[in-house]
């Protein structure tokens, strides 16, 4: 259904104001910049369709859609031959001068290793800074599940720290 001019204006203003932040969330959820743009466009298109019915929290609606779309994409990719993301091609050997760049690339890679639900919880909790209750509402689970999923996700990242010097989440400045 087409939007009225006033609704269209509100929608456009929302997209212009929030698209950068939402793209960053999408990037962390999908682990790939190109996929992030795709899922964000899809999520915003769905938002446009339901704009009349959304009461005051379009951000939450888009985040929920991004989580769902990223999960769907993850499942689809699991059935397809592995794609090589551009981020993976950019990886370089660790060097002090490039520590920040390496951190960034390694972090994306580390997030990619998590199942979609764990990744979503970490991104929503620590990147979007949502509370446990808000995250639970957005994902559609209990607060207890958010707590346990967060704990498992962090534990899984910690498990990869058998060689702390090389791990993306270890403190490079201390080494």
């Amino acid at each position, binding site marked *: 259904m087409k939007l009225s001019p006033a609704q269209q204006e509100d929608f456009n203003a929302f*997209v212009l104001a929030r698209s950068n932040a939402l*793209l960053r969330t999408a990037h962390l959820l999908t682990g790939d910049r190109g996929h992030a743009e795709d899922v964000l466009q899809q999520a915003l298109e769905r938002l446009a369709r339901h704009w009349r019915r959304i009461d005051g929290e379009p951000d939450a609606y888009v985040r929920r859609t991004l989580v769902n779309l990223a999960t769907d994409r993850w499942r689809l990719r699991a059935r397809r031959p592995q794609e090589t993301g551009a981020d993976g091609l950019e990886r370089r050997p660790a060097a002090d001068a490039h520590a920040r760049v390496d951190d960034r690339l390694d972090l994306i890679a580390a997030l990619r290793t998590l199942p979609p639900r764990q990744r979503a919880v970490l991104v929503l909790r620590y990147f979007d800074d949502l509370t446990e209750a808000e995250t639970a509402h957005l994902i559609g689970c209990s607060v207890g599940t958010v707590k346990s999923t967060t704990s498992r996700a*962090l534990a899984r990242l910690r498990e990869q720290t058998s060689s702390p010097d090389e791990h993306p989440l270890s403190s490079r400045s201390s080494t």
Partner: protein
Amino acid sequence: MSDLEDLPGRLASQMHTATAADIAPPDLLERVHRAAARRRHRNAGALAMAAIAAGVAVVALPTPERSPEPERLAGPTSPASDLSVVRSDSGRLGGSVTVDGELREERVELPGYLRNNADQPVTVLSMTVPGTGLQAQFPEQLTLVPGGKVPLTLTRSVDCDTGPALPAQFDLRVAVAGQSGPTSVLLPLPEEVVALYRVSHACSPERRVADEAEARARAAEEARRQAEKAAQPPSAG
């Protein structure tokens, strides 16, 4: 391992660093609007295909130009101004109402609801689609509580003459009781609802009666042929 104790804090910091350079493409908004337009086009096409698959003829009519905003006959403070039409996924292409075996009415269940968005109850007196003969029949009157919905179940009398063509614009006229008497509001119907109505109109009661009569005649002819065949003596050899 002490550097791992603040894992959440460092994770948050690195996630922000990791995506700080991400800027949405400048044409994102344009792409979203194009995708939305494509989706609308696909939906309309899917409806037509579903109708064809169901064996219903689709009348090709030009899409009417729609006014962007509903024509508000009631004032902005009227309870009617807080009503809206919400599309739903349910709905049927319409059935028929017969009295003593004779077709009397066409019933159309449009895939949508009328919703009361006001904070107070609204008394709905009538719902009609001007120019089509479609109207809702309430026992007396209907009170919609705040947030309440009523399905768009409308009927059209067989005797109703809607003229040679469908109206150029499809709107739902809703009359509500107000403090200073009844007022009404015209609400544009969603495109999908209009598409369904066009399909429904194509299989109008008159056409359905004619089709049924033809089917009965064909069945009778087939039965007669079978009876004649059965009455013939079996051929030798």
